[in-house]
């Protein structure tokens, strides 16, 4: 009896996947807001708790199913994959542009370009130095791991273009994913320290951090009003990384290590 009821509920969740995802995520946010209000006295943003909770559930889901898509690999929660997938994520990010104060955005334009340049070069240097420190000596592997430190899309795109082997590709993707997760969790913690409280600094932040999922999560957890400014620069980051990774950056590394 108990089993049939459970089976019926699972059936509804599988059939109504996106609707189920709305309900589950809504409940998650409700719980997080209550926790933020009563457990932290409002000091921590409810959405910060919700995002961390989401990541914890993704970890649990990943362990449980052995898949790569966290909770979305559980059949009854597959709708999470559609709701939080690239299509709706980008759609919602574009929608936030409706709230952009054009004067603010234009004033910080040059700063955003500078941030994009630094946000590509700095992680790449750190990534390449780490690769060298761990005993990689060929230009292809070093470049691929360095590109992974830019974002988890730049890594494999660069690796595929210059012919890296699959172990190095996996390392490169893992580096990018780890960075994205760390940006999501770390941003609200350091926001005050790095002056991330106005549209100008949000545009610099978006360009420097790059990873769209990291920036999207980090700013949502910190202060929703900053989202469109950070997203505006961050969405150019991956494209620029994919442009310079297999070309300029690879040539530079090859010139250095021979």
């Amino acid at each position, binding site marked *: 009896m108990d089993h049939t009821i459970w089976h019926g509920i699972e059936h509804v969740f599988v059939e109504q996947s996106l609707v189920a995802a709305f309900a589950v*995520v809504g409940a998650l*946010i409700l719980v997080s807001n209550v926790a933020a209000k009563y457990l932290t006295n409002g000091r921590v943003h409810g959405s910060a708790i919700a*995002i*961390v*909770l*989401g*990541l*914890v559930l993704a*970890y649990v889901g990943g362990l449980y199913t052995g898949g*790569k898509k*966290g909770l979305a690999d559980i059949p009854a929660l597959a709708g*999470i994959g559609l*709701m939080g*997938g690239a299509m709706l*994520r*980008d*759609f*919602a990010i*574009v*929608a*936030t*542009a*409706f*709230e*952009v*104060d054009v004067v*603010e955005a234009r004033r910080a334009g040059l*700063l955003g370009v500078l941030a994009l340049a*630094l*946000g590509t070069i700095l992680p790449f240097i*750190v*990534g390449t130095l780490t690769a060298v420190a*761990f005993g990689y000596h060929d230009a292809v592997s070093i470049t691929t791991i360095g590109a992974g*430190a830019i974002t988890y899309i730049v890594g494999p795109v660069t690796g595929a*273009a210059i012919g890296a082997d699959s172990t190095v590709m996996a390392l490169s993707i*893992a*580096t990018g994913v*780890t*960075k994205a*997760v760390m940006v*999501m969790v770390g941003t609200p913690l350091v926001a005050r320290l790095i*002056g*991330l409280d*106005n*549209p100008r*600094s949000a545009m610099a932040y978006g360009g*420097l*951090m790059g990873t*769209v999922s990291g920036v*999207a*999560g980090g700013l*949502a957890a910190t202060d929703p*009003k900053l*989202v469109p400014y950070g*997203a*505006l620069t961050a*969405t150019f980051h*991956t*494209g620029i990384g*994919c442009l310079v990774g297999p070309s300029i950056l690879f040539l530079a590394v090859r010139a250095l290590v021979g």
Partner: protein
Amino acid sequence: MIVLGVALLAGCTLIGVYLGDLLGLALGVKANVGGVGIAMILLIAARFWLSRRGRLTKGVQFGVEFWAGMYIPIVVAMAAQQNVVAAMSGGPIVLIAATGSLVLCFGAVALLSRIGRRDPGSPAVERGGSVIEGDAEPVGRTAGSQVGKE
């Protein structure tokens, strides 16, 4: 009409992503270059154009702002489908490369945000924040309650 707002948003997104693909192709990159950013700029331009012509109706605005308000739930869903297991089991090289670049970039944000003067913030920015947070009252009701007050 609300659907016109949603369609406007969809149109801007599709055109932006298409242009991003073209840009990637032109540059010889196997990726979309700034598609979402281009879409955002298109939407900003569309809002500017509509409001100047007095065509920015409450319905259109609501159709777009609903999706802006869904931003945080969508991001939570995105967090819940990250490959956190892979991130946690990447080993020292992954951790060092990720942490190092993160710390350096946070430092650079601190430096860059100190360049130039601090802006005091504007009401438009604050209002945008409450829409994206999903807290803003529906446009119609705000207008209604103000009528009631007068």
